[in-house]
């Protein structure tokens, strides 16, 4: 992991901002770094993780410089999240802040340095997960947008859309018991966890749908066969991102 300051390449001529280093609380101009960021989003059970895994395998096998990052994966706030969940201390606000702290850690110590170091970064869930889920819990959109203002804007955001029933059934059939917060029990939508989960997921889906246009989501049909979906994904990545820059050969050419 590169935690030390990486030398930042000067912004390309089309960069409008003079800032070269990211500043917390300021939107990161997308051309302030040479790397590229690909994100997958979607409700639980939409198939996004499988698809990102296959995309990652494709790129790895091709020898591209890449790094994979997951939502909620840093050890930093794990104990707090666990405690908060076990004792049910979390409110919509503190739930949101704790995940933001976790993301900030990953952003400042992994994602930004890697983008500055000219890597292709693949993210399984990104800030849109927080926008959808926390808004579904009642947090204000304006507050949430401000909270994550420091996050670099992805080059591609794939949104795997699956009808509510399909997604919910995929989760319910594979899992014996839903967890309290996962099922959105803190919202008091229903006493029954599966029913609460369904209502919560419906709200999340609604929030995701609102972001399709505002956040330039590339919408993919999560009900398609896995290999067909993967082909679409690879085609889009190849057309939108200059993959040659991340190939080992590109390094030698410099």
């Amino acid at each position: 992991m590169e935690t030390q300051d990486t030398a930042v390449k000067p912004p390309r001529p089309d960069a409008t901002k003079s800032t070269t280093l990211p500043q917390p609380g300021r939107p990161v101009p997308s051309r302030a770094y040479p790397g590229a960021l690909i994100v997958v989003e979607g409700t639980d059970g939409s198939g996004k993780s499988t698809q990102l895994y296959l995309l990652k395998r494709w790129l790895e096998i091709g020898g591209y410089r890449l790094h994979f990052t997951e939502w909620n994966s840093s050890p930093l706030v794990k104990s707090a999240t666990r405690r908060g969940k076990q004792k049910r201390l979390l409110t919509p606000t503190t739930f949101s802040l704790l995940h933001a702290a976790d993301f900030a850690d990953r952003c400042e110590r992994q994602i930004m340095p890697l983008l500055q170091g000219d890597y292709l970064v693949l993210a399984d869930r990104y800030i849109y997960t927080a926008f959808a889920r926390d808004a579904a819990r009642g947090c204000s959109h304006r507050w949430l947008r401000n909270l994550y203002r420091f996050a670099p804007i992805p080059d591609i955001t794939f949104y795997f859309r699956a009808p509510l029933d399909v997604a919910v059934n995929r989760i319910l059939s594979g899992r014996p018991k839903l967890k309290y917060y996962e099922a959105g029990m803190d919202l008091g939508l229903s006493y029954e966890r599966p029913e609460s989960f369904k209502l919560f997921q419906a709200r999340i889906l609604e929030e995701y749908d609102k972001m399709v246009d505002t956040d330039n989501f590339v919408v993919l049909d999560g009900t398609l066969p896995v290999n067909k979906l993967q082909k679409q994904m690879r085609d889009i990545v190849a057309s939108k991102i200059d993959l040659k820059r991340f190939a080992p050969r590109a390094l030698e050419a410099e």
Partner: protein
Amino acid sequence: MPDQEREKAVAPTEMPSKPPAVAGTEAEGNQIFFGESLVGLDSTELNGNLIVIEGMDGSGRSTQIALLQEWLESEGFAVQTSGLRRSNLVGRDIDELLAKNAVTRLTLALMYATDFFDQLEHRIIPALRSGAVVLADRYIFTLIARGVVRGINRDYMTGLYAMALRPDLTFWLNVRPETAFGREFKKAQAISYWEAGRDMSLSHDLYWSFVRYQTMIKREFEVMAKLSGLIELDGEASVSVVNKQLRQRIGEQLAIRSSKYTPSAALAHLWR
């Protein structure tokens, strides 16, 4: 003391009047919060008073809060206190992060925000609902100042705390960093890494690092004092003088007639 008892003990006769134009953010309309409403809060039930004491390390906040608590309790008010890193949710986690000193500024700012809102929702608001007086040992102003001096955008920091309750009174104990240094050093015979702002690489010299860091914080307070109507008190004055000024303003707020107070034997050592 159980909450029911507290409620009886306090029974405030009138709703506190919120100070006008206490604005830390662009939103002016909301009188109870700084900008946005807290999710799921019925704010009509908040009968208590929120009194905030702000000031840098060594400004005398904790001493004053101990004395105020005793005074208010002797006047029959139930008191709840709050302060940084005291939440059940992340208080200890922040302690650990600080000890390890391996955390970036933004993450730390967000962990402090989590700590703040956990206390607001689980400690401050329930106390206000039961009619208690909440004495907050620091509030959002310190947290905003710390973020801003570390280069985090000011709007970002104020936006983060848009759902903080507006205090009924906010005092700022203003002292010179040089004075604060002496007081802090006396307490522990040392100055901590974070008090001196060592993470900011201001100086290798501990004293100068402390003074420069606290001066930056102080400048932020000067800005916020104007914007948010903080009541500035001279923290260089003696404990009893500062305490008298605090009791005067708080007494007006809570309609306490007599202003007499002498600390009990337990707190007499603080009185100088």
